[in-house]
């Protein structure tokens, strides 16, 4: 039914600006792939080049068995959901949904049937005769989705479709889109700057920065085994703490650049004497002294009821996230971490040491 998208060495220049650098990516049939990264990383540009709305400077793009590198957007048979929804303001919901089919001059009965079916799937049956301006944000979002689904395209492209919704609706639409994907099973490429969205929705997450792909992998792979310091810091919320340090003489532990030079035992030996950046996830730091422990001065405690966030008074702030409650007047806190949860990155290159 659907097919895969292959990107081969895609390069994109805007004048002197190098927007995409040697992007190669295979998107398997039926996959839900999220492109994620900070703003300006090229994720939206990459999506727009797949759609054909932006040309590429060099490289090759294959959808199914077809080389689409030089094809116009309308010849690529892809559907896109825009951040602004981009509904046709002068058309009712019904005509928005049927636009593509009407362009192809499909029989009226076939169009009516398809519209009814899509309206049922997206919950728009009652709203078919309204204009976009008469709809709420969530309803417009559904029309944009319906307009994409009705085409039965080779793949769906989503350009930050949820960023204009309020927080509660965003969580709701997140699961709706994911369920829709499970039902339809079409290849989807989803651009977002929100790593939670990427982690929860996608089978495969592509982390980008400055026009480069930093890492491709399953969401939990990225969380457990980030390829470098950037991915480690970007994936996971709250973000990973980084503390500079040095591998001990025997390679079995790492000394942190903190007052008293505390040392943490490592699960696997590392190169003795190497300068490293030590990554400690806030949720991996447990309160209490069990083996690998640190004593840290406390700057601030935030409580949400279910968990407490402790910010330490150290040169590079360390955030501790604990499920328990922390007392009011703690001057310092003892935290411990399991050796297998310690991430090491080369201090110079930021590449993960495994």
């Amino acid at each position, binding site marked *: 039914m659907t097919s895969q998208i292959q990107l081969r060495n895609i390069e994109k220049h805007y004048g002197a600006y190098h927007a995409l650098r040697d992007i190669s990516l295979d998107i398997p049939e039926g996959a839900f792939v999220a492109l994620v990264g900070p703003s300006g990383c090229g994720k939206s540009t990459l999506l727009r080049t797949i*759609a054909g709305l932006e040309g590429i400077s060099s490289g090759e793009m294959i959808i199914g068995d077809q080389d689409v590198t030089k094809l116009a*957007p*309308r010849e690529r048979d892809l*559907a896109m959901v825009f951040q602004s929804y981009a*509904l046709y*303001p*002068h058309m009712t919901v019904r005509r928005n949904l049927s636009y593509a089919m009407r362009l192809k001059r499909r029989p009226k009965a076939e169009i009516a049937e398809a519209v009814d079916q899509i309206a049922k799937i997206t919950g728009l049956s009652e709203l078919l005769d309204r204009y976009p301006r008469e709809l709420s944000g969530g309803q417009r979002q559904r029309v944009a989705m319906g*307009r994409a689904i009705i*085409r039965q395209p080779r793949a769906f492209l989503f350009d930050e479709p949820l960023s204009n919704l309020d927080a509660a609706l965003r969580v709701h639409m997140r699961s709706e889109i994911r369920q829709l994907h499970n039902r339809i099973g079409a290849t989807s490429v989803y651009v977002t700057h929100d790593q939670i969205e990427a982690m929860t929705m996608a089978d495969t997450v592509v982390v980008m920065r400055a026009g480069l792909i930093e890492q491709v992998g399953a969401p939990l792979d990225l969380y457990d085994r980030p390829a470098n310091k950037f991915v480690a810091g970007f994936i996971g919320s709250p973000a990973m703490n980084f503390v500079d340090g040095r591998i001990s003489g025997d390679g079995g532990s790492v000394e942190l650049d903190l007052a008293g030079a505390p040392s943490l035992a490592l699960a696997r030996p590392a190169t003795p004497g190497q300068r490293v950046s030590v990554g400690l996830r806030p949720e991996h730091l447990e309160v209490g002294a069990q083996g690998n422990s640190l004593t840290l001065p406390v700057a601030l405690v935030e409580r949400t009821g279910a968990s407490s966030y402790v910010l330490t008074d150290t040169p590079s702030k360390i955030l501790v996230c604990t499920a328990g409650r922390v007392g009011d007047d703690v001057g310092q806190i003892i935290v411990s971490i399991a050796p297998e949860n310690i991430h090491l990155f080369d201090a110079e290159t930021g590449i993960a040491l495994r």
Partner: protein
Amino acid sequence: MLVFKNTFRDGVGFDAILVTLALGYLVLFSAFPLVYNLVMSFQEVDLFSLASFDRPFVGLDNYEDVLTRTEASSIFFNTVKFVGISVVAQLVVGFALAMFFQLDFPLNTWLRGLFLAGWIMPALVVGAVWSWIFAGDFGVLNYMLQALGITDAKIFWLSNPDVALYSVIIANIWLGVPFNMILLSVGLAGIPEDVYEAAQLDGASRIQRFFTITLPMMRAQLGAVISLGVIFTLQQFDLFAALTQGGPANSSNVFQYWSWQLSFQYYEIGVGSVISVLMILFVVFVAAIYVRSTRHEQVM
């Protein structure tokens, strides 16, 4: 006097003064001449009775007189041609230019600004310039056409009864295009780019995008441009005065110029008023369409 003192000190009654001023202006300079014109169209008015309000009432005699004149029907059709061709051509050329200036190219805004030069010039000046261009013996238009081998003989643009009206129409199109272009440019700029992108992905070709997205989304602007174009074209007087004076033999005469000729050249003021009354009725009708089209503007 107290009212004014209070107004200047506390702003009391300031709103009433503003309304009175505006209303007074309208009554004095719009409502009164309009009604006076209407009254005169039912009276026998000549040079001797011009100074007094007490003139013989003649009912619809003036209307019958003017509409049965031999030149009336040809002048009517001239007016229809003048308005119809001018508005359609201004719209098509203006729309095409507006779309052209949507493209991104160097000196874009500078060139578009130049187009406005024609619009800000007084129509009488434009008429004088065009009368030089159209001049039969030494005009640049004839020179060009002959140099390009399009015509052998000189065309007497302003004195040939078959072409005189079209000469004025050409000048009027040139005069009206910038206004159309600017108004339509604003409308085009208001259509979001991503709507076009969505249509592209939905499979719409360039021509399909124009007919299914651009045109329907420009409905309000098109309605405004067409009705304003009709109104402005019916007001076009200066070009006739500068180019043909309605001649030769009324071949390029139109209602608005004829009305002026009757009233102020032949002093048949009652008859001249009839024509302006008829034109007022038509313009009010067009204006009503214009108001409707702007009221239905869609807001996203």
